[in-house]
């Protein structure tokens, strides 16, 4: 870290250039942005931002260009897409670009959210301009260096593929200019390319991490191996919040390789940590522990009792989220034209393929952490706090993650917290904490269970004339630092998103919510509230379209607000691209849905039949409006995969349930996500042509698939499907 500069030293505030020699003979060029979040301070005397050196671009003497990614890579493809954006503006030779994940540091914080993180489908949306400007500034400095060397004006130079060209046939490779370029002042303002000048943005660019992920060489957090490293597992209470009354570890300690066994505090309750030389030893030792748990005073959740409670709550109005139009409109609609629909959504676990893990080494006055983390800033702070250090005394490495879907974005940082707690006791020894799959499935932090009750009064035109909607589900954000911003009038906005901001033009609309407290830790699950709200909206709208005897796309078009341009464009494209709906095989039906979330609009059509009492999804056609498409290949992959991920909530085994406070599932044998046979056979993705600012593609695919599938099923069976997981069709 740099020393804090005197307050009046403003000259270099916008010249965030640091130069440092490296042994290899190359030079780091580091550029730092003015973050929008602090931009408003510039009229006043601003506090100088302290940035570490070597932040984003390193033009190496061998011609390689190393670009640092301020995000976790966990499948979504930013390790390729963000470098693409920078390289495009920089006119870098893409074949020479390599990229790395940034450690936790001030400069890598999300420019909008203000902390280092991946979530809310914000990586491209928030860092697009940031990475473009970084690329353009680097390019300008390389040109300035060439112009200086050739004693010509920068205007006489142009760049292409990591080469600066000057007048009279002069040319020099970027690598040869790196050192001189690093000494140039960082331009305050740079002009950016017009979309017609893009060479990488908008193309299908293959991932940079493919080869390493196909030959076994890619290292994930769980693959970390450090000299002297020990493996830890923790016996967690089977009822959330349980405390260790006593434990007998005599048998466990007899195992060869067991290093230590001790009680540790957890975020909620306590557990017993087992530390051993090897994972298998640690796990066996844990199985041999005899623990007496104290669960007195704890709520012992029972799913069927909770459903009863939730359904009762759903029949009473909750805290008001939206109250629009005439509250008495419903009473004027004849009872025969009203429908009441009650929905159930279970708890869902994320179960990323790589089990949760964190590695920490504590050295007294400093520490090091290796975590596949979506929330580096929080996780670093937590490790520091547990170890009695300041965050900058913890070197925090972002490890590649095997999926996440929200599960590695935990505000209480409970996994790194456990690792740090254990490492503190084993000072000097690196400790890798492994959550087994059983720990993960039973460990909480689920998509909350929800009940919805919707009453719709249908107007004479077949469109909804009155809409009363109650949602019941735990708050994800209560008790967190996000509560101030995200809980309004007692309603957690993540509970109601997708309904509260619906694009449908419903004049008399009343939405309220109950956020009960339940002894189950909950968390955002890829697309958060939209997982259940889009299901309700899109199945209800489909039912209304059927009752109105209208084509489901035409009905949606008619009901959407004219200003919902993104979604309307997606629906139009879907209509054009799903001609197969008119030539379905016997026993097949098409289902439609559309939804906009995280700024991206998606329309989906599926071809479904019934096989063995389950939906068989033969095909999904998706139309996406995500503004400017940065990497068309990544977008396609995110949509193909996100659609498959969304099938999780249709699986017969897609539910976490409780009996006597304990989770009834254990592993993938009880909690069953979609396998290849469950996912759509093909997913064709069509992108609306757009030059608007890019929006995210991680979460928006997820909400549309499950309503589209059950809408198709409804056509086949005449039944409506309002309880998930989907039992026998």
């Amino acid at each position, binding site marked *: 870290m740099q020393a804090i500069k005197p307050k009046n030293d403003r000259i270099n505030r916008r010249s965030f250039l640091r130069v440092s020699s490296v042994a290899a003979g190359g030079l780091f060029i580091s550029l730092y942005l003015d973050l929008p979040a602090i931009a408003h301070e510039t009229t006043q005397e601003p506090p100088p931002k302290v940035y570490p050196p070597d932040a984003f671009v390193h033009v190496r003497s061998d011609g390689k260009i190393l670009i640092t990614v301020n995000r976790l890579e966990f499948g979504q493809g930013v390790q390729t897409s963000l470098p693409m954006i920078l390289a495009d503006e920089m006119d870098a030779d893409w074949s020479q670009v390599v990229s790395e994940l940034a450690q936790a540091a001030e400069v890598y914080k999300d420019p909008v959210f203000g902390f280092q993180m991946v979530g809310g489908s914000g990586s491209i949306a928030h860092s697009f301009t940031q990475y473009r400007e970084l690329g353009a500034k680097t390019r300008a400095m390389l040109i300035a260096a060439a112009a200086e060397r050739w004693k010509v004006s920068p205007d006489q130079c142009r760049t292409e593929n990591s080469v600066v060209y000057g007048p009279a046939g002069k040319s020099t490779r970027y690598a040869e200019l790196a050192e001189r370029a690093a000494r140039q002042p960082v331009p305050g303002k740079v002009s950016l390319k017009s979309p017609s000048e893009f060479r990488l943005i908008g193309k299908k660019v293959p991932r940079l991490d493919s080869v390493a992920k196909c030959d076994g060489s890619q*290292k994930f957090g769980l693959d970390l191996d450090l000299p002297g490293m020990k493996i830890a597992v923790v016996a967690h209470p089977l009822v959330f919040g349980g405390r260790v009354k006593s434990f007998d570890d005599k048998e466990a300690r007899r195992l*060869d390789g067991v290093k230590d066994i001790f009680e540790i505090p957890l975020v909620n309750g306590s557990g017993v940590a087992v530390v051993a030389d090897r994972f298998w030893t640690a796990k066996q030792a844990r199985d041999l522990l005899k623990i007496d748990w104290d669960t007195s005073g704890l709520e012992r959740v029972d799913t069927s009792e909770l459903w009863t409670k939730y359904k009762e709550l759903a029949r009473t109005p909750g805290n008001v989220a939206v109250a629009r139009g005439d509250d008495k409109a419903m009473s004027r609609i004849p009872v025969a034209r009203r429908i009441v629909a009650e929905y159930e959504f279970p708890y869902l676990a994320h179960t990323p393929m790589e089990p949760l893990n964190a590695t920490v080494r504590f050295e007294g006055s400093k520490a090091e952490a290796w975590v596949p983390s979506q929330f580096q800033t929080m996780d670093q702070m937590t490790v520091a706090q547990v170890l009695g250090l300041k965050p900058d005394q913890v070197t925090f490495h972002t490890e590649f993650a095997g*999926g996440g879907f929200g599960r590695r974005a935990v505000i209480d940082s409970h996994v790194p917290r456990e690792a740090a707690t254990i490492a503190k006791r084993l000072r000097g020894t690196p400790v890798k904490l492994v959550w087994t799959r059983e720990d993960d499935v039973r460990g909480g932090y689920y998509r909350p269970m929800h009940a919805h009750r919707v009453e719709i009064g249908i107007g004479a035109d077949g469109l909804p004339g009155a809409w009363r909607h109650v949602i019941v589900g735990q708050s994800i954000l209560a008790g967190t630092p996000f509560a101030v911003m995200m809980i309004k009038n007692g309603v957690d906005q993540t509970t109601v998103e997708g309904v509260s901001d619906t694009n449908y033009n419903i004049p008399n609309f009343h939405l309220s919510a109950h956020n009960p407290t339940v002894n189950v830790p909950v968390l955002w699950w890829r697309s958060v509230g939209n997982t259940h709200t889009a299901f309700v909206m899109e199945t209800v709208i489909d039912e209304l379209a059927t009752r109105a005897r209208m084509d489901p796309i035409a009905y949606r078009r008619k009901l959407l607000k004219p200003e919902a341009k993104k979604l309307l464009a997606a629906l139009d494209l879907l209509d054009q691209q799903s001609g197969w709906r008119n030539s379905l095989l016997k026993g097949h039906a098409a289902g439609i849905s559309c939804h906009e979330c995280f700024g991206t609009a998606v329309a989906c059509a599926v071809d479904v039949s019934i096989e063995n009492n389950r939906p068989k999804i033969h095909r999904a056609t998706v139309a996406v409006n995500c503004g400017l498409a940065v990497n068309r290949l990544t977008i396609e*992959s995110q949509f193909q995969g996100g659609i498959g991920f969304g099938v999780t909530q249709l699986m017969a085994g897609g539910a976490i349930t409780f009996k006597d406070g304990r989770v009834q599932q254990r*592993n993938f*044998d009880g909690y069953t996500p979609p396998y290849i046979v469950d996912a759509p*056979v093909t997913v064709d993705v069509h992108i609306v042509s757009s030059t608007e600012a890019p929006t995210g593609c991680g979460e928006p695919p997820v909400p549309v698939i499950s309503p589209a599938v059950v809408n198709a099923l409804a056509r086949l069976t005449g039944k409506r499907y309002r309880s998930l997981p989907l039992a026998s069709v």
Partner: protein
Amino acid sequence: MATYQLNVNGQTKKVDADPSTPLLWVLREELKMTGTKYGCGISACGACTVHLNGVATRSCIVPVSLIGNQKITTIEGVGADPVGRAVQNAWVEKDVVQCGYCQSGQIMSAVALLKATTKPTDTNIEESMGGNLCRCATYVRIREAIKRAAEQLT
């Protein structure tokens, strides 16, 4: 503890391990071959798939004591075989991976499939790949890559 001589990717490796230790953990922790992944420990996800004498096997439930002199092939060695190489190439060509964590197992299962069936149908693919979980749900591209590799091999 006991000592085992394992034939891994054509090389003999000597390891000391508790006889109950699953092959997965011997590969990962004793031999430092971390390409084979832990996903569930109960043979329900396929991330740990290796070949034992060419047969796709879940290494998380096979104790090291039962391996004997069977030939073990892992993701680190499968590229030495023409089918393995073709599958890896097809995976890259079709940009299959996302998080990539399950893909070692997917590739090992796909190689076993293509060795048994040169022109796999969708049904063959669903049967052979049916136990390999991918939470990113890269299944569409897995199908395409398997068909591409089959094409390349004929």
